[in-house]
Structure formats: C-alpha cells, structure tokens
C-alpha cells in the first residue's frame, strides 16, 4: 500500500504558489474543500486561477479568497449569489471565463483521462463557440473544447483511506470525482480518514491512484445556501 496520508492541511497544501491554477471541487457550497480554502486564505497565496463550478458566496467558500483578492481568474459555469464577485468582475479586477457546466465537467474528466480535446454541442452558435473549431457530426454542429491544465486539484470526499481511496456522499460528489487526477497533484480532504483495508473496495468511488495527498479536515461547517423545507401535515 502506498501511503498518501498527510497530517495537516498545511502539509497537504505544500507547493501551492502564487500564480498557479487550481481546480476546486463542489457545487455551490456543497462538497467544497472547506479546510483547504481556509488554509489558502491563511497562506495568502496570490494571483490564483481557480477552476470551480461556482465562486462561493460572499463570506464562505471561494468567496473568502475573493474577499482577499487572491484570485486573478475564475473559470466557472455559474457565479450568481456573490456580490463581491460581481463587483470585481464588472470593475475588471477579476478575469472571468464562463463556460457551460457540462463542458466544465468534461474538461476536468478529459484532463483526468488523458484526452487532450473533445467535441460537444454545448454552446454552438453562442459566444462560447467564438474562436473555437466547429465540426459537424451526425448532422449536428459541435465545438472543440480542450482538457484543463491545472497545477493542483483540491477535492473533498466523505470518507477516504490512507491509500487515497475515496467515497462521496449525496450530491456533495458533483465535480470532485472529475477533478481527481485531473491536475499535476491532487489533494483530497475527507471528513473521515481510515486505515487502508477498512473501506470495502466495492464501494470506492475514486481509486487512490488519482490522489497524491489525503488528510482529514479538522471541521466542517457545511453551510446550506438555500434551506428549503416543507411542513409536516
């Protein structure tokens, strides 16, 4: 067994430097690597390019890095619910590349799987297709999209073992499995880290081969963005 365990978030994030490109898992605030984001704020790493479906909210998730102006560029599919983001984008302080959500996921997966580019119908005929190669397949137009090229992928899982195997919970899975192994180094933070051999191999969602460093997060707030409920009859 190759041991991927590191003891602290500081150790896990070693090597992340100014100007790097990071992939960060999560959808909204669901399944985000909270502990790593908090540490990036502490480290004061600057000029980051962040590939993440959303940009958090004003005071949580990637919004914390935006507040400290640590992000130079965001590559996302949806960035509502974040006033500071909007302000930085409209003032030109922040570069923003908005891309279709399925294309975002597939560009991660392509990087993970060694596929340099692929064709998708998403965005054909819109501003997303500007400057991109377009081709017809089976009577339908598609555009070429490239695999991402990132320095670090920072993902969050529910359970993991010291071999780096990961299990996700509910919709906190989202982009996390797609980003595992999609960057030069993948860091996984988990709610519960167990010894290799403890998890049932049948239940592993992402094999440890895609993960270089794993640690157990100290605490998880798991903030809910839209608390919607119904009353019991």
């Amino acid at each position: 067994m190759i041991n991927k365990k590191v003891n602290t978030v500081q150790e896990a994030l070693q090597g992340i430097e100014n100007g790097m490109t990071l992939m960060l898992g999560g959808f909204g605030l669901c399944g985000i690597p909270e502990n790593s984001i908090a540490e990036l704020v502490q480290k004061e790493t600057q000029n980051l390019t962040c590939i993440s479906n959303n940009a958090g909210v004003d005071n949580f998730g990637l919004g914390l890095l935006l507040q400290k102006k640590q992000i130079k560029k965001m590559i996302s599919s949806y960035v509502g619910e974040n006033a500071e983001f909007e302000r930085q984008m409209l003032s030109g302080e922040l570069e923003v590349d908005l891309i279709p959500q399925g294309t975002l996921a597939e560009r991660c997966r392509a990087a993970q799987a060694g596929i340099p580019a692929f064709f998708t119908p998403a965005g054909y005929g819109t501003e997303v297709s500007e400057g991109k190669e377009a081709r017809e397949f089976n009577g339908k137009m598609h555009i070429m999209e490239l695999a991402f090229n990132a320095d670090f992928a920072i993902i969050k899982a529910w359970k993991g073992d010291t071999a780096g195997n990961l299990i996700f919970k509910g919709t906190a899975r989202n982009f996390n499995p797609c980003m595992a192994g999609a960057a030069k180094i993948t860091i996984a933070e988990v709610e519960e880290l167990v010894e290799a051999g403890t998890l049932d191999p049948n239940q592993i969602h992402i094999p440890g081969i895609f993960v270089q460093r794993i640690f157990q997060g100290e605490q998880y707030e798991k903030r809910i963005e839209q608390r919607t409920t119904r009353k019991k009859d």
Partner: protein
Amino acid sequence: MALDKIGIAKRIAQELKDGFFVNLGIGIPTLVANYIPKGIDVEFQSENGVLGMGPFPFEGEEDADLINAGKQTITTLPGASFFDSALSFGMIRGQHVDLTILGAMEVAENGDIANWKIPGKMVKGMGGAMDLVASAENIIVAMMHVNKAGESKILKKCTLPLTGVGCVKKVVTELAVLEITPKGFKLLERAPGVSVEHIIASTEATLIIDGEIPEMKID
C-alpha cells in the same frame, strides 16, 4: 385571465408522459414537480448529480450534502441515485433525459433561446443550460410572455446573447401555448379568457393561427 406561475406550471405538467426522465430548471419549471398528472411515473434529474429527486425535506431534516441545482435542500425518492457532474452531463448530452423544462428571457421563432446574460447588467453564467438545450430532444420553455416593461419576449430574433440555437420546441406563457414549427410560432392554446387578439398584440413575432384556438384546460 392570464395565468399565474402556478398555472403555467400546471399546464406544462400536462406535457409529462409516463416513464419520462425530466430535468427542471430554476424558477417556474421547479413548480412543475408539484403537478404531475395522476397515474404516471416520472423521475426528476438534477444536473448537480441526482436522479429520483423528491420534495423538500421536513424542517430539521435538511442535509447539506443533498441539494438540487438551485442549491435548495431536497430529498430523494425510492430508486434514486447519485453521480458525478461528468456522468450527469453524459446523461444530458447522451439524450437519456427525455424532457428539459427551463426558463428564458427571450425565445425566437427559429427556436433560439437566450437566458443567461444581459450585457452590462446581469452576468451570472449559463450553468448547465447550454448543455441542456444543445442536447435535449424535447425542450419546453416556461416564461412570461412580456417583460416588466411590457415588451414581448416572444421574438422574430433574439436580441440577448444566445444560450442555444434552433432548439426550443414549445413555449408556455401566462397567455398562450406556442409550438415552434419550421414556419415559426404556431398558437396552440390560449389562457382561459385571453383573446387571440390580446396574444397577437403581446407577441413581437408573427403567429401562425390555424382555425379556432382552444382554451387551456387548467384544474
């Protein structure tokens, strides 16, 4: 009288068929889940990675790890499954999802749709909308016929940045049900008590009107 949002959702719910996998957008489309016709089984997909989405949880039973694409807390129904975003959009682009219902700012008579950006005013991003409209075989748009300034959103040509081209099949508004044909918008039904003349006056695009236009039947 023009329909309210619930009326639009109820009319769209009549388009659901037994065995459909359906993706619902944010806003009016989300309401459609409350009015599934009796006797049919449909399953809702949310692109953040769940099939078999159920209603909102009871108070105190919310799970931060279980949300829909609108980031609202949800529950799952028997037979539900979770998956990652790449597989989710594989389902969508691979046309395994039968019906997409989404909102729009503008729809044009050639089936173009705009719903993600107002230059200089609102830029939130397209989320999954571009993937959904580029791939779904069956797209129904739920929208208001006119904007707050009273201007038609049913157009000859979209003015806002497009989300997809030539993809919308049907539009349900507070005034009418419209089908997009190779010749443009065809008026299929009118809201109860709304005249054909009122619909024509509220529509910038030319409407194809073939004989008597029936009223929508809304319970």
